[in-house]
C-alpha cells in the first residue's frame, strides 16, 4: 500500500474555521447569577471527555470529507503485458537436456514455463505450440492455472516431427494484434530449425515488427542443434533478447531474466487506482458524536 493522500485537501480549511470559531465566536451561554456554587471548588465540574469527543467527531468528519485515499496497483495493469509462449513440441524435444540429465527438454521446458506463467500474475498469457504446424493451445487469458495445466498436459510430437517456427511466430502476432496491452511479448522456445510451415521468415519478422512484439528467443539444447543465427535475428529485430539454455538451471535462469526484464517495465507503467478510506473516519466520527451527545444529555445540557 502506498502512502495516503487526500482527494479534497482544501476541506481541512473547515477545521481552521472551527478552531477560529471556538476562540473568537463562541456562543455566549446564558449565565445565571447563583451564589456559593463557585465558592466551593469541589463542585465545579469540567467534562474533559465531552471536549475530547466533540473535537474528535469534528476532526473525523473533516477527515472523511477530505476523502483520504491510498493508491493501490489496479487490475487495469493486467493490460500492461500480454505474453505469448511459443513452445516447440517437435519430436526432437523428447531428447534429454544436458549430458547427464535424463529428463527431456520438453518436460523441463513444460515445467519451467508453467511456473513462469504462474509468476506473471498481472499478465495476459497465451500458449502456442508448434511442430509441423502451429496451433493455439490456449488463447490469451488471465486464467493462469488453466494455462499452466494445459502446458503440463502437452506431449512431444503432438504437432508432428518437424518445426514450423515462423508459422508459430506469425500466429502469435495475429493473436497479440487485437490485444490492447502496452507491452506484447513472445517467448519463443525451440530446439531446432524452421523445417515446416507456410510463412517465410521475412513475413514473420514484418508481422512481429509491425505489431511491436518483443520476442525473447530461447535456444534449448546444445549449440548447433537450433538455428542460433535466426533466433538472434528475430530477437534483435523485435527488440527482445536471445538466450541459450543447455541445462535445466540455465533455462530457469533464462525465464527469471525475462521475468525481471518485463517486471521492471510493468512497475514503471503500472497504473494505480484509488482506494477510498473515508468510511473509517466517518465511523469513528459518528461514534464520537454519539458519545458527545450522550455525555451532554447526561450533563443535562441538551
Amino acid at each position, binding site marked *: 500500500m502506498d502512502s495516503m493522500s487526500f482527494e479534497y485537501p482544501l476541506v481541512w480549511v473547515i477545521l481552521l474555521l472551527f478552531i477560529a470559531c471556538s476562540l473568537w465566536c463562541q456562543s455566549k451561554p446564558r449565565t445565571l447569577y*447563583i*451564589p*456559593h*456554587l463557585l*465558592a466551593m471548588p469541589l*463542585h*465545579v*465540574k469540567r467534562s474533559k471527555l465531552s471536549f475530547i469527543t466533540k473535537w474528535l467527531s469534528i476532526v473525523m468528519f473533516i477527515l472523511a470529507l477530505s476523502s483520504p485515499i491510498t493508491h493501490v496497483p489496479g487490475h487495469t495493469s493486467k493490460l500492461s503485458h500480454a505474453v505469448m509462449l511459443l513452445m516447440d513440441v517437435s519430436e526432437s524435444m523428447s531428447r534429454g537436456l544436458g549430458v547427464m540429465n535424463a529428463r527431456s527438454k520438453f518436460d523441463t521446458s513444460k515445467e519451467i514455463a508453467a511456473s513462469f506463467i504462474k509468476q506473471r500474475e498481472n499478465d495476459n498469457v497465451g500458449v502456442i505450440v508448434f511442430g509441423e504446424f502451429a496451433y493455439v493451445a490456449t488463447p490469451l487469458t488471465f486464467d493462469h492455472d488453466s494455462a499452466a495445466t494445459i502446458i503440463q498436459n502437452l506431449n512431444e510430437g503432438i504437432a508432428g516431427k518437424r518445426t514450423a517456427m515462423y508459422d508459430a511466430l506469425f500466429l502469435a502476432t495475429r493473436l497479440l494484434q487485437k490485444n490492447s496491452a502496452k507491452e506484447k511479448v513472445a517467448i519463443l522456445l525451440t530446439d531446432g530449425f524452421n523445417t515446416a510451415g507456410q510463412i517465410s521468415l521475412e513475413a514473420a519478422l514484418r508481422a512481429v515488427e509491425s505489431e511491436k512484439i518483443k520476442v525473447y528467443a530461447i535456444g534449448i539444447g546444445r549449440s548447433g542443434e537450433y538455428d542460433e543465427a535466426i533466433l538472434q535475428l528475430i530477437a534483435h529485430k523485435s527488440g527482445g533478447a536471445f538466450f541459450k539454455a543447455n541445462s535445466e538451471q540455465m533455462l530457469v535462469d533464462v525465464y527469471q531474466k525475462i521475468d525481471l526484464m518485463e517486471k521492471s517495465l510493468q512497475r514503471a507503467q503500472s497504473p494505480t487506482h484509488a482506494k477510498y478510506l473515508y468510511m473509517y473516519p466517518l465511523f469513528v466520527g459518528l461514534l464520537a458524536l454519539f458519545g458527545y451527545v450522550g455525555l*451532554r444529555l447526561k*450533563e443535562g445540557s441538551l
Partner: protein
Amino acid sequence: MTPLGYNLIVQRARKHIFGEMVGSNASKKEGDGYDFAQIRPYMYGENVKRIDWKQSAKNGEIQVRSFFEEKEIHLHVLGLIDGNLHFGIERSKLEVMSEIVALLGLSAIKNSDFFALSLLSDALLYQSHASKKEAMVHEAILKTLQAPLLGQKINWHFVQEFALYHIKKPSLLFIIGDFFEMPKLGAMARKHEVIVIRVRDHFEEKPWSLGALHVKDPITLKEDKVVLDDAFVKRYTAKRKEHDIAIESYLKKEGIKTITIYTNEDPFVKLFTTLGAM
C-alpha cells in the same frame, strides 16, 4: 427613580405595623410609665403626685404607686450587603431584606423608639441618623433597595469595628444578611443586644438538579460551568449543612438570637412570631 417593589414594601409594612401591631416596648425598670408595678411606702424625695391616698389612709402610712418605666430603645439595623443578595427564586433576597428593614423601622417609629440603618459591605455604603421620623424609615427602605450588590463582599472586621465604635449607644442591633460565612459578632454582642436575621433562599441550601449551567458568582463575578446533578446536590447540601451547623453553634455560643427568613416566607409573620417567642 423609585425601585420596583418599593411602594409595595412600604404599603405592606405600614399595614402590618399600624394595622395589626399593638403595645409598646415594656421595660422592667420602674419609672415613668403606665405599666403598674407595685404599691410601696413613700421614700423621701419621690414625686408626690404618685402618692396613693386611698392606700395611705388604709395603712396609716404614706404609700406610692410605682410603674414600670417605658424605655426608649435605640434600634439599629445593620444591613450586610454583598453580591449574594442578588438572588432569589420567588423574591430577591434584597427585597426581603428591604421589607425587614421596613417592618423593623416602622415598628420602632410606632413605639417612639429611635431607628437607624447602616448598610455595610467592605465599606460603609449608607448610614442614617437615629430618628423617630417615618420619612427616615422610607429613605432607609429606598437605600436598601438601591444598594449595589454585584461584586460587593462583606468585611467582617470592618463590620465589627463599625458596630463597636460608630454605634456609640448600646442598642438593639438587628444584623441582616445571609450568613453563609462565619461571622465575627462576639465583641459587638457584648456591647449591644444582637439579633441576627438570616435572609436565605431554599435553593441556596439545597439546589435542584438542573443539569449544566453557566454560573456567575455575584461576589467574585467569575464565570464557570457547573453541572447540577444529583451527586453534586448531595455533596453540596451536605457541605452546606455542615457549615451552617458550625455557624449556628458559634452564634449560640455568643448568645446571639437568630431568625431565618426564607424568600418564600412572609417576613412579618416570621419576624414577629419569632421575636414574640424570644
